[in-house]
């Protein structure tokens, strides 16, 4: 078995035992990137020399006896929305083309300290706004299962890179489903931690009350190891939770659901859901029951209004956050010919530098926040947010976790929804409630849909700081399904 097929846990153990060097592991992955990147387009930036320099430094630290974590020497790809001091950071926008941040995000910094080696920066929907990675200013990423399909979004470069064996691990951010949805449609594991459980410092802001960094991996344990490596209180993020990190690695190793109470969200199914998605989901629920879980149906009637509430709250926050792109301190500046005012230069720069979805959301947010409309739109959406959080709370009195399909459909064709924002937004129907309530949620592969042979994800939702429950259930599902399949789902993916 070649190095690129190893799990992150295996690679970390091999490096720690001196069986392989961090440089050799990095080289194997850089070679894979060079080989398949023309087909997948998962990366916006790869710099072989910078990566190998980092790997050499990790080997040196290990040789000198420094004690690093279990992922030391393991390579990782970062969504290009986390700042990196030695690689450009663009958020897949023209407005930040070539920008070199003067500092590292907390997630980036902590993972460097733990000895992970950065392979490059991955593609995304511009400023994380989208569900297909088609909104990147630098061209779409393709789904390794079918190159004509989307890899999900907004963290589609990160999901594709892991599914295509270009990286064993990657980071993403989840504002409305941007980790779970790409994980589901590429057949890998993706976790949205509890809001505030992972630091937003150095993460280019989209919707600050929702943005949550999280891990991608090809299996549940690797995701938990990465989750643990970057999580924990950060004084540089004022919304960071000052509480111990839930014991996610232990939960991923346990994977036991005997006696656990599992609620099936009644509202997530039926019309608009692909039959193959529902079939795999229902099988997963039956499987959990056979493993000793107690399954009940739970009704959360307001979850269906989470989508409209989200598309008021997120654009409102984005219209404020993206005001910082003013052409004055960093990034693009257009039309500064000595005669135009700062305001004119600003408007020309933003028109040239932002793509269509970003412009739509800025204007929608500006509308929802304007006087006369504020109460009916933004104010009402915030109230709906409270109602949804209360429905979660009531549900968690009855059950330990909630489950649903991660997405209503499998990966759709590139171009199909590109100019139909409302159709695109439906991809996040099942994932958004957890963002509004700040809850933890994970997506784990649960099979292939009969109609198209594409991956289906099972979503497991847990209360605030109940991240370990997500891993516990996901690990149980993974173990049972892999013994049924005779290996991981990804072995069914066509060779690239």
């Amino acid at each position, binding site marked *: 078995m070649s190095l690129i097929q190893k799990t992150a846990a295996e690679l970390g153990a091999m490096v720690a035992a001196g069986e392989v060097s961090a440089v050799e592991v990095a080289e194997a992955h850089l070679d894979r990137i060079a080989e398949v990147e023309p087909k997948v387009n998962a990366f916006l930036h790869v710099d072989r020399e910078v990566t190998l320099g980092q790997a050499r430094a990790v080997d040196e630290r290990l040789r000198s006896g420094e004690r690093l974590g279990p992922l030391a020497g393991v390579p990782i790809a970062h969504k290009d929305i986390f700042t990196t001091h030695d690689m450009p950071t663009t958020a897949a926008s023209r407005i930040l083309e070539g*920008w*070199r*941040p*003067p*500092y590292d995000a907390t997630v980036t910094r902590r993972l460097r300290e733990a000895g992970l080696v950065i392979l490059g920066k991955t593609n995304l929907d511009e400023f994380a706004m989208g569900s297909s990675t088609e909104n990147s200013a630098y061209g779409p990423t393709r789904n390794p299962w079918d190159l004509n399909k989307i890899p999900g979004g907004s963290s589609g470069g990160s999901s594709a890179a892991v599914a295509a064996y270009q990286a064993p691990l990657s980071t993403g951010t989840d504002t409305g489903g941007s980790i779970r949805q790409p994980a589901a449609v590429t057949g890998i594991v993706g976790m949205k931690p509890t*809001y*505030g459980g992972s630091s937003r410092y150095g993460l280019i802001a989209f919707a600050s*009350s929702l943005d949550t960094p999280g891990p991608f991996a090809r299996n549940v344990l690797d995701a938990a190891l990465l989750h643990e490596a970057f999580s924990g209180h950060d*004084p540089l993020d*004022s*919304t960071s939770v000052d509480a111990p990190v839930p014991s996610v690695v232990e939960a991923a190793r346990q994977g036991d659901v005997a006696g656990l109470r599992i609620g099936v969200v009644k509202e997530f199914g039926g019309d608009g859901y692909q039959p193959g998605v529902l079939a795999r989901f229902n099988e997963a629920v039956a499987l959990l029951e056979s493993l000793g879980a107690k399954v009940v149906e739970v009704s959360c009637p307001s979850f269906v*209004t989470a989508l*409209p*509430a989200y*598309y*008021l709250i997120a654009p409102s926050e984005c219209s404020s956050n993206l*005001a910082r792109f*003013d052409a*004055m*301190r*960093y*990034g*693009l*500046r257009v039309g*500064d010919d000595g005669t*135009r*005012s*700062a*305001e*004119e*230069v*600003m*408007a*020309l720069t*933003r*028109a040239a530098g932002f793509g269509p979805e970003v*412009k*739509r959301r*800025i*204007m*929608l947010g*500006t*509308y*929802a926040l*304007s006087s006369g409309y504020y109460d009916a*739109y933004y*104010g*009402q*959406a*915030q*109230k*709906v*947010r*409270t*109602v949804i*959080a209360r429905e979660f709370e009531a549900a968690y009195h009855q059950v330990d976790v909630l489950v649903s399909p991660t997405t209503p459909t499998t990966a759709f064709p590139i171009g199909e929804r590109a100019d139909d*924002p*409302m159709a695109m937004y439906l991809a996040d129907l099942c994932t958004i409630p957890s963002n509004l*309530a*700040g809850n933890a949620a994970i997506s784990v592969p649960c099979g292939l849909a009969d109609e198209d042979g594409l991956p289906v994800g099972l979503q497991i939702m847990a209360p605030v700081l109940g991240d370990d429950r997500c891993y516990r259930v996901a690990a149980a599902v993974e173990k049972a399904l892999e013994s049924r399949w005779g290996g991981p789902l990804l072995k069914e993916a066509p060779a690239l």
Partner: protein
Amino acid sequence: MSAITRDEVAHLARLSRLALTDDELDHYATQLDAIIESVAKVAEVAAEDVPPSSHALPLTNVFRADEVRQSLTPEQALSGAPAVEDDRFRVPRILGEEA
């Protein structure tokens, strides 16, 4: 009846500092109209007596100690600037001709 007119979209673009073309305005007016009509569904939730949530966690006023800490050097802070002059950001004029 449409939820938003083209004139309103033009006004939003000005407020948002987006110099849009006429074609873009036409395009966004149609799309924003459809989106606003759809998100207006939030009104269907009976939430009159419910307090709004701006945030998922009960956090208020997180302060740090008021101590001088290491920060970016002027070179680092200016490293991504479109234009620099005398260790400062160089910007276009900010006052109108009549000022």
